[in-house]
């Protein structure tokens, strides 16, 4: 092969000038483009707001790369942001795998990497060792799964649960694992364990199987696109038992896809609810709707929060060098975000309370709050 692309490296460093470059390495095309796009929209909205005042007179500049929902492209994109654009920090990616593909590059190039929605524990912590440069804004999986299991056992006295997971998603698998552990510890039995892959549309065959296992509760940790279809088809198949999921459900689209009636008797754990009366949440939802003409989903909310998490760290660091930002990020404490009060623990994972929400005729209603 012959090279032809060797230009000399990009100009401009992260420290100089009056802008701070932040990279976003997200899924803008490919299989899970909708997740990445929501995340970026959240980020962009937050950047706009932050830049109204700036941070110590500096503005944030977002440099986006598209990783095509592909790990190889994510590596490539991270390298571009690190060595070409010389950003001060990278936000990304929306999914765990594409985040994992960037961890080593962030570490090698000494750049903070924050994933808004990558929930795999390995991202921040590999083999018992914390990844110094890597942070996240979302829950890690075990918490939500445990909350759901306890809810099933306590509220419904459920003894025979079914679990239906998205195998393409670490998030879904992580939640399910925690659910199963706590649920069996509570004395329940998992009577059916089924799986699907993101982007499937027809779940009737598997639901028929679940139905014949006669569960009294179904745990369905997945994202709203499939969950909506599953709940709809489950109700059509005559499965009337309570169904519960996590924050991946949270989107007004869920109600549109499944229909309000099908969603009756379903529950989710969430750190945020678009219906939440909290003014912080309401302001965000309004601003988002005004800018994009759609209601934000969880990916958008966490993208938005990630921008504020970063801005807060830069402000506290008083200096936009990656090293300082990293140190400040690790010390994040009681930061009020749309998704709740966030404190990063020593694993670089946020600790925040969860709410349990219930769907009633297409509306989310508050059920209860659980602290970690």
């Amino acid at each position, binding site marked *: 092969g012959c090279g032809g692309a060797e230009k000399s490296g990009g100009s401009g460093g992260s420290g100089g000038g009056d802008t701070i470059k932040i990279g976003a390495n997200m899924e803008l*095309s490919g*299989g899970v*483009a*909708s997740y*990445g*796009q*929501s995340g970026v929209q959240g980020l962009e909205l937050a950047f706009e707001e932050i830049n109204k005042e700036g941070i110590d007179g500096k503005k944030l500049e977002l440099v986006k790369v598209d990783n095509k929902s592909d790990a190889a492209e994510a590596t490539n994109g991270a390298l571009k942001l690190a060595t070409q654009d010389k950003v001060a920090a990278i936000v990304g990616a929306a999914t765990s795998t594409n985040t994992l593909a960037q961890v080593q590059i962030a570490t090698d190039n000494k750049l903070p990497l924050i994933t808004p929605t990558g929930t795999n524990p390995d991202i921040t912590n590999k083999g018992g060792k914390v990844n110094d440069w890597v942070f996240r804004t979302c829950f890690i999986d075990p918490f939500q799964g445990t909350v759901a299991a306890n809810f099933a056992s306590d509220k419904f006295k459920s003894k025979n649960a079914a679990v239906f997971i998205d*195998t393409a998603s670490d998030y879904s698998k992580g939640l399910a694992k925690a659910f199963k552990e706590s649920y069996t510890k509570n004395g329940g039995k998992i009577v059916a364990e*089924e*799986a*699907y*892959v993101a*982007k499937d*549309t*027809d779940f*009737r*065959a*598997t639901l*028929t*199987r679940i139905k*014949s296992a006669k569960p009294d509760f179904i745990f369905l940790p997945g994202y709203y*696109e499939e969950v*909506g*279809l599953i709940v*709809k088809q489950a109700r*059509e*198949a*005559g499965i009337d038992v309570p169904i519960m999921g996590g924050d991946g459900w949270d989107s007004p*689209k869920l109600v*549109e*896809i*499944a*229909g309000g009636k099908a969603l009756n008797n379903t529950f989710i754990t969430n750190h945020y609810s678009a219906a939440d009366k909290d003014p912080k949440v309401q302001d965000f939802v309004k601003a988002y709707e005004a800018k*994009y003409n*759609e209601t934000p*989903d969880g990916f958008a909310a966490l993208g938005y929060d990630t921008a504020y998490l970063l801005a807060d760290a830069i402000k506290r660091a008083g200096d936009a060098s990656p090293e300082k930002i990293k140190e400040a990020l690790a010390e994040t404490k009681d930061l009020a975000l749309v998704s709740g009060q966030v404190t990063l623990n020593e694993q670089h994972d946020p600790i925040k309370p969860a709410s349990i929400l219930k769907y009633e005729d297409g509306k989310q209603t508050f059920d209860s709050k659980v602290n970690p």
Partner: protein
Amino acid sequence: MELIQQLINGISLGSIYALIALGYTMVYGIVKLINFAHGDVFMVGAFVGFYSITILDLTFFPALLLTMAVTALFGVIIERIAYKPLRNATRIAALITAIGVSLLIEYGFIYFRGAQPEAYPADVLPTEKISILGVSINSQSIFILLTSVVLMIILQFVVHKTKIGKAMRAVSFDAEAARLMGINVNNTISATFAIGSALAGAAGVIFGIYYSKIEPLMGIIPGLKAFVAAVLGGIGIIPGAMVGGLLLGVVESLVSAAGYSLWRDAVAFIVLILILIFLPSGLFGKNRREKV
């Protein structure tokens, strides 16, 4: 009982595949082009239907007809711009263009409206849950099955009995000889694309109503499945696409029913390969040895 329920699940899934595969196999049979953009025309149809129902406030049938008209036109435009210049190129070159067109439709669509899904309103077509002896059938799936059977019959009739159908088959077999019969080759091919794309559009609307969720990349997998169904039944053979689609649906359902839902597509492909090994031109393809 569960087995019967699963067979019914499979048939309703399969009739969706069949619906998409009908237009696919027609274009494929006549134009000899693997039109990878067919799945994307299907997607466009789903969105056109969605907008005509939600924005234009149309009811089901007008929305369906409008969609079919729009996608027919869309198909013809695609053909004229992207495929016509490649009439004399190799098939594989045309295939690459089709892949390009497919990507362009998907990402052009995402560029203009984002990748987020949309949901069809629930009340476009009445849904009735029919239960017989513990087996439940959704009235919509009966509707879909009937629609695909009717479309299959119409299509078969059009291609085999009408003048335009004969012109299509003549062009497909030998375009130059067809010109000597006085057939306008360009118009005939456009008509083929128009019919195929209208069918894809119709499938899109029906899919949208049945599953409610639509999104810009929704055409990829059904498009692939329809291609598989078309090949399984024998390229260009209209009843073959129908049977191929149903078979695919049933196989997938039975695999899921056995608890191997994650292996579903793999098993479907294994069945496909095995069938092809024994019937190298598909289920209904005439296994005609090349005359030397």
